[in-house]
C-alpha cells in the first residue's frame, strides 16, 4: 500500500493556489532560467529571492523538512558547489575561458600513485559556483514544498486538468506517493536487519565490497516495491481502471490569484527570454565588486 508525504492543511497563500498554478509557475521559472541559459546574478538573485519568499509563505515547519534540507544542502553545496569550484564545468564555457586571477593551486593526487593534477582555483570558478548554487536553489525551493503543501488527493486531478491522459495522470499520482512508501519500506528493512546485528556504520572495504554489504537493505526494499507495484496493478484492474475514459471527481477552478500568479510566472519566462535573446543580457560574468574582494 502506498503512503503519502507529511501533508498538512495550512491556511496559507501557497495552499490556496490551484495546484496547476503552482506546477505551471514552477515550470515557468525552470524554463526561464534554463531555456535562455541565464547566468547573470542580477537576474538570478531576484528570482531566488522571489522563490525564497514563496517558500516562506508556505509556512512549512522546520522539523518536518530538516532532513530533506540536509539532503538538498549536501547535494547542492558539496556536489554542485564543489564541482563548480574545482572544475568550472556544468555551465557556460566562459567560466574557464575568460582570464581570471588564480586564488591558489589545489594539488589533487590519486592515492598511492604518482598521477595527479594541479587544479587552479580562479575567482571566475568561485563566482560560477555561487551562481550555480543560487540557480539550483531557486528551482529547488519551488519544488521542495509541494509534497508538504499540496493535497495528495489532487495530484492526479491536477495533471489530468493540465491535459495529461488518464493513465499518465494516475501514474503521476502514484509516483508522487512512491518515494515516501520507499522510505517506509527502507525503515522497516533497516530495523529488521539491525535486529540481525547489521551495522551500517561498519561497512568496510572498497566501493564494490561496500555495495555488496548494502545488499541486505537494497534487495528487500526493491522486492517490496515490486510486490507493491503488482498489487496496485491488480487492484486497479479489478476496479476497471483504464478500460473507459474515466470521470475525475475532483474539480479544480482557477481564482483571480491564480491568474495573477500565472501571469507573473509567464512574464518572468518571457522577460528572461527577451533579456537574453533580445538584449543580450544574462551571460556569465564576474562582477567587479567580487574580484576586488580578492585582488587589490
Amino acid at each position, binding site marked *: *500500500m502506498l503512503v*503519502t508525504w507529511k501533508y498538512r492543511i495550512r491556511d496559507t497563500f501557497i495552499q490556496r493556489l490551484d495546484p496547476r498554478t503552482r506546477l505551471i509557475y514552477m515550470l515557468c521559472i525552470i524554463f526561464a532560467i534554463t531555456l535562455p541559459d541565464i547566468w547573470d546574478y542580477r537576474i538570478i538573485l531576484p528570482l531566488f529571492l522571489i522563490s525564497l519568499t514563496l517558500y516562506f509563505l508556505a509556512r512549512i515547519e522546520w522539523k518536518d523538512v530538516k532532513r530533506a534540507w540536509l539532503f538538498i544542502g549536501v547535494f547542492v553545496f558539496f556536489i554542485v558547489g564543489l564541482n563548480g569550484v574545482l572544475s568550472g564545468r556544468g555551465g557556460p564555457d566562459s567560466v574557464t575561458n575568460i582570464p581570471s586571477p588564480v586564488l591558489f593551486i589545489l594539488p589533487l593526487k590519486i592515492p598511492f600513485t604518482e598521477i595527479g593534477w594541479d587544479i587552479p582555483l580562479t575567482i571566475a570558478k568561485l563566482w560560477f559556483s555561487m551562481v550555480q548554487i543560487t540557480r539550483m536553489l531557486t528551482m529547488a525551493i519551488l519544488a521542495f514544498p509541494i509534497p508538504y503543501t499540496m493535497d495528495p488527493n489532487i495530484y492526479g486531478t491536477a495533471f489530468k486538468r493540465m491535459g495529461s491522459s488518464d493513465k499518465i495522470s494516475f501514474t503521476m499520482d502514484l509516483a508522487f506517493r512512491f518515494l515516501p512508501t520507499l522510505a517506509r519500506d527502507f525503515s522497516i528493512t533497516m530495523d529488521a536487519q539491525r*535486529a540481525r546485528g547489521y*551495522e551500517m556504520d561498519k561497512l568496510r572495504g572498497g566501493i564494490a565490497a561496500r555495495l555488496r554489504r548494502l545488499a541486505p537493505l537494497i534487495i528487500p526494499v526493491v*522486492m517490496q516495491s515490486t510486490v507493491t507495484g503488482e*498489487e496496485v496493478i491488480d487492484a486497479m484492474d479489478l476496479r*476497471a481502471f483504464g478500460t*473507459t475514459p474515466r470521470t475525475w471527481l475532483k474539480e479544480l477552478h482557477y481564482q483571480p490569484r491564480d491568474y495573477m500568479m500565472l501571469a507573473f510566472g509567464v512574464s518572468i519566462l518571457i522577460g528572461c527570454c527577451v533579456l537574453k535573446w533580445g538584449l543580450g543580457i544574462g551571460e556569465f560574468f564576474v562582477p567587479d565588486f567580487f574580484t576586488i574582494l580578492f585582488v587589490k
Partner: protein
Amino acid sequence: MSNFPLVVDNLSFRYRTRPELAIENISFELKQGELLLIAGSSGCGKTTLARCINGLIPRSYRGERSGSVLLHGKEVAEMQIPEMAQIVGTLLQDPERQIVASNVYNEIAFGPENLGLPRDEIVERVELAMKRLKIEYLRDRETFNLSGGEKQKVALAGLLSMNPSILLLDEPLASLDPASAHEALEVFRSLADEGKTVILVEHRVEDAIETHPDRLLYMEGGRIKYLGTIENLPSEIDHTQVKLPAQWVVKRVKEQKKPVETPHQHKVDEGGEPLVVFEDVSFRYSEESPLILQNVNLKINRGDLIAVLGPNGAGKSTLVKHAIGLLKPTSGRVFIQGEDTRKMSVAQIAKVLGYVFQSPTHMLYAQTVREELEFGPKNLGFEIEPMNKSVAESLSTVNLNGFEEYPPLGLSFGQQKRTTIAAVLAMQSKIMIMDEPTAGQDFANYTRFMDALCSASIDSQSILSANFASTLFITHDLDLAVTYANRVLLFGDKHIVADGKPEDVLKDTDLLLKYRVRPTSLLRLNLDLLARTKRFLPAESLAAFSF
C-alpha cells in the same frame, strides 16, 4: 437471462507452469442473496476457483481452462472488464493490497470514476456505500492511517460503490483483530440478506459460521469434497485442515477413537534473574505525538512462552521494539540481562534477543538459504566452525534440510517464514520474539508450524525451549495463546492490562472483549472443563476430558 447470478459448470483449470490440474470438475450454482462459504486448506484450489469467478483467469493467469463460469448467464471469459467489475466485486485477503487512493472518499469513488459515470451518480454511490457500512466519519481520513478493520470496510465500500451483484471475499478476516473480524462477518451476512450473492473464501470455518452460510463448499485436491449445509458437515472433513469449532473437533476425535497426546507444559524458572525488565517505560515518537506506551512494567523470565494479545494499533510492536533496542524509551528504562538498552547497540542486544519480523520480505535478501542464515552470525562475529554448525542445526530444526542452496525469495510463504525463524535461531540468541508468526499462513500450515516450534514431548524439548531461554510472540489469534503460551499479556490503553497464566488472564471474558479480543469456542470449552483439565489444552486433547 439465467435465474442464477453465478453458474459454474464442470470447471477445470491447469496453470501453464504446472503439470497437474489446479481445480477439476467443479460445478455449482448460486442464487441471489445466497451466502456460500468455500473452505479448504492451502493448495486445495479455492484461490484458483475465485480467480475463475472474478475473471483474473483467463485474463491475468494463463493456462488451460475447460467448462464454464456464467455470470447472469454470460460466460466470464467473453466479458469485458468494466462489465465484469460491475457484477463481481472482489475483496482481497489483505485490504492494504486493494487500496489505491490516498484518502477514503477518493478510494470509494475510484471504481465508479473508472466506469466513467456522471459526477452526481458517483457522489450518490459513494455516500450510499459509506452509509451502508457506517463509515461516514472516515470520509476525509488518509487511507494509510486507518486501522486494519477500517481499511477493510473502506475496501468493501469501494466494491459496493460499483454496485456488484456478487461479492467475492477472499480470506477477508486474515489481517483483522477478532472484534473487527466479528464486525466484518456481520456486514457480510447483512449484505446477503439485502440480496447480494456472497462467496466467502475462508479456512477459519469456526469464524465464518457466524455469517450463517447457506451452504459450505469444501475443497480438497482441487475437487469438491462436500457441498451442502454446514449443519450436515460430514465427519470426513479433516479438522486439521480447516479451523472448526472446538466442540466439533472434540466430537470428531471421539468418533475417530484415535489416541491423543496431551502436550507437555513449558516450565517457568521463577528463581532466576529476569532476562528482560521494563521499568516504568513510556514512549512517544515525537514531542507533539501522543504517548504509545505509558508506565509499562514487565519482566520476562526463563521458561516464559508469552503470547501478547490486544487490539490493532495498540502498541504491541512498539513494546517489543523496545526490547531489541530499535526504540528507546522516552522515560523509564529497559534492561537486557541487567544492562540498560540505552547503553547498548542493537547489534549487542541481538546477541541476546532475536526478533523475527512479521513479513519475511522485509528480512530476506541472500542468494541462498545458507547465505541468509549466515548473515546474523557473521554480523555477531561468529568463527567459521561454530557458524557452520549453528546454521546446519538451525536448518534441521525448522525442517529446511535440502534447501540450503535455494534462493529464499523463491520459497513458498511458509518456507520463507521458517527461513526467518532459522535465521534468528542461527544467531543463538537467548530470547526469541516473533511478531505475528502465523500471519499470511492458513490454518493447517500455521498449526503445523506452531506445533513444530512449541510442542514438547515428555522425552524431548520443543524447538523453542531447546534453543531459547524464553519466547514472546504477538498474535491476534486467541487460540494460539490458549494452545501454546504459558503466560499471556493483554495490552491496551498504552499499558499491560493483564499479565499471568493463560488460565488466569483469559477467564475474564469481559476484559478480553473490552480490548477487542473475542473469546473463541476453544477458550470457552477450556474454561468449561478447567476444573478437570487444570490447564488449557488444544481441542483434540480436550476430547479425553469432555462428556
